[in-house]
């Protein structure tokens, strides 16, 4: 390793940095931030914003053969300068500050006075850097350049050309990462505008990433448009439940309403991206039809129960069925549930002597980037805990058959609509006892004898094990509506009622699980942290 490191000095501090690293990243190593607009670690270097200028001196062999340090006469852009042995870099000299102030002044000349109506305000690089490096008062008195405003780029993105600072991040992303070369600049000088190539518009599943990339408010999300100011959003680190990739995300919520999902850095999983499908998959959390009360349904008589009462009744009836004979109960779990929930679910199956259980596989089309065909976020978890059959879904037919035969009298369904999976409404009608844990009403919840309202991913903590066997954590951003509660609490309550008292917090349940489940042995809750831990799953 050591041969690939070079020594250089940044602001007088000697550091070692790997060869090939540019100065922005090198400065980051010692906590010095070099301001920039166009540079992005995952995109190619454009070097057009000129904000990251620094003073650089490199070693040269002098006339006598001794190396001498020679300062570059001009300021150098840090993004396109890689580290060199013996280099000296100064990042905040008066000359640099003056240059950046000039850059900022130019950038703001034609920038419209849109902050009050711009969704970016609050997370706008232009605002932040203007505060840090720009002048406080304006010398510009002329008319501003007019450009098209409020242009739709595809169905998901709103473009405001006046706000654009021509950093070209979006162009580079669409071309190099999303693989759809559709954006470009038109015109010259101050009349340059960002635009779509004629007849093309961003239409990949990754378009919305350019909204995150845009350092200003030129590109905004139609979905999030005028919904909420970002400075009010509570940022909760969580996971996307849309597929088995397990993209790391931030849930932006305000007062128990989830407003948006944005990707967060995880080099091992999703870098800084996420797909639009996953990003827009949050509305069900705020759905007004969410189930909020435990219900029992006996002969069309619907009654709402307290959790204690519901748990007691269910435990009683399940115990009666267990004692009545073998194989009368079947479980259908969900690979969308957290590992802890599946672990408890498996334990419950053990207590009730259930051997017949499975999860419902959900699949969809995959793409070459993040989206997987396995749309369950925790299939690996379901396999590890033993809830899923191998392959997942393979025992569903057996369950359907059992119900048909009348062998299976009771079915416990965890957050799944099983009708498309082959257990139709007619079969459900045959059941003596159907218990459904669910968040939204469906045909299954209509038929269920006991209906227990569960919580969405945004309302609980827990872990998912992704496709690659990485265990990652999510955190609750909002409270569950009404009396709904996380499934792990429901299951822990049922287990306690059946004589198996459980730990009170999810963290302790995880700890108990980590002692039993081989793949997670030795992985502590804290170790999972915000970036997850790679497990060794066979």
């Amino acid at each position, binding site marked *: 390793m050591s041969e690939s490191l070079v020594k250089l000095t940044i602001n007088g501090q000697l550091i070692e940095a790997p060869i090939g690293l540019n100065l922005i990243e090198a400065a980051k190593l010692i906590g010095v931030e070099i301001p920039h607009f166009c540079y992005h670690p995952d995109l190619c270097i454009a070097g057009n914003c000129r904000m990251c200028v620094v003073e650089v001196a490199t070693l040269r062999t002098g006339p006598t053969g001794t190396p001498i340090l020679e300062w570059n006469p001009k300021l150098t852009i840090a993004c396109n300068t890689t580290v060199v042995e013996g280099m000296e870099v100064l990042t905040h000299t008066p000359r640099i500050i003056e240059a950046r102030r000039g850059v900022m002044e130019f950038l703001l000349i034609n920038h*419209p*006075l849109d*902050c*009050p*109506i711009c969704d970016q*305000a609050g997370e706008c690089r232009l605002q932040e850097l203007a505060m840090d490096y720009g002048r406080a008062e304006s010398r510009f008195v002329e008319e501003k350049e007019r450009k098209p*405003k*409020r242009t739709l780029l595809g169905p998901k993105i709103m473009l405001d050309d006046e706000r654009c600072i021509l950093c070209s991040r979006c162009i580079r992303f669409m071309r190099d990462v999303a693989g759809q070369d559709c954006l470009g600049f038109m015109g010259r000088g101050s009349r340059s505008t960002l635009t779509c190539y004629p007849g093309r518009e961003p239409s990949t599943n990754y378009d919305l990433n350019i909204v995150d990339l845009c350092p200003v408010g030129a590109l905004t999300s139609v979905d999030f448009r*005028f*919904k*909420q*100011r970002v*400075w*009010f959003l509570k940022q909760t680190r969580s996971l996307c439940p849309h597929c088995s990739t397990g993209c790391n995300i931030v849930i932006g919520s305000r007062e128990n309403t989830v407003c948006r999902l944005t990707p967060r850095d995880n080099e091992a999983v999703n870098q800084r991206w996420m797909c639009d499908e996953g990003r827009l998959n949050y509305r069900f959390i705020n759905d007004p039809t969410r189930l909020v009360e435990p219900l029992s349904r006996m002969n069309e008589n619907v009654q709402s129960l307290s959790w204690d009462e519901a748990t007691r009744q269910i435990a009683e009836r399940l115990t009666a069925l267990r004692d009545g004979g073998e194989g009368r109960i079947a479980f259908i779990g969900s690979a969308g549930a957290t590992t802890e929930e599946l672990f408890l679910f498996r334990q419950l199956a053990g207590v009730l002597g259930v051997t017949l259980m499975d999860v419902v596989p959900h699949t969809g089309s995959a793409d070459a980037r993040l989206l997987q065909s396995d749309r369950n976020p925790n299939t690996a978890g379901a396999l590890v805990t033993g809830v899923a059959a191998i392959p997942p879904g393979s025992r569903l037919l057996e369950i359907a058959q059992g119900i048909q035969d009348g062998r299976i009298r009771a079915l416990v369904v965890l957050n799944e609509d099983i009708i498309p999976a082959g257990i139709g409404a007619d079969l459900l009608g045959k059941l003596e006892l159907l218990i459904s844990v669910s968040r939204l009403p469906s045909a299954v919840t209509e038929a269920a004898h006991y209906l227990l309202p569960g919580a969405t991913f945004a309302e609980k903590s827990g872990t998912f094990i992704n496709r690659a066997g990485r265990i990652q954590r999510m955190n609750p951003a909002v409270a569950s509506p009404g009396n709904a509660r996380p499934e792990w609490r429901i299951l822990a309550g049922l287990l306690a009622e059946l004589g198996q008292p459980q730990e009170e917090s999810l963290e302790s349940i995880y700890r108990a699980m980590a002692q039993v489940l081989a793949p997670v042995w030795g992985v502590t809750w804290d170790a999972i942290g915000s970036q997850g831990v790679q497990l060794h799953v066979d």
Partner: protein
Amino acid sequence: MIVERPKLTIWDRLYMPQILKGMWITLKHIPMKRFTRQYPEETPPLPKRYRGVPTLVRDPEQRVKCVACQLCEFVCPPRAITVIPGFRAETGPDAKVEKEPSDFIIDMARCIYCGLCEEACPEEAIFLKKDYAMASYTREQMKLHKEKLLELGGIHEDRICKWKKK
């Protein structure tokens, strides 16, 4: 400077002279002009800067000046303001503004009349007016909504007409 501690003379120690002096002081006040005000009939003269109820204003063309930037909501120390952002009509004279509050709620039970909202507003849309008797019977009534706030605010002479120039 050591303050002088009056030494009571024999005369003072007899109580009465000082009491009589005091009584003379108080007696002089009986015919004096009253300092207090007969409130509901006589309203106090309010200075120009008086900070009363916060209101929303329209410009002379009846346009709602607020664009729902929510700075006031952020700056409000007691969190009395709730802005629900919304869209302006896409056609029409003020389509350029794009954004407006679909509702603007000030909870007068929480408002401390500090005036920071007026100071923060980048659109000169919120002003503290001189009305001060804003009591109601219920907490719900204490919440002033957009319509009421606009009614209280009235028209504000706009020197700049920012959005017209866009």
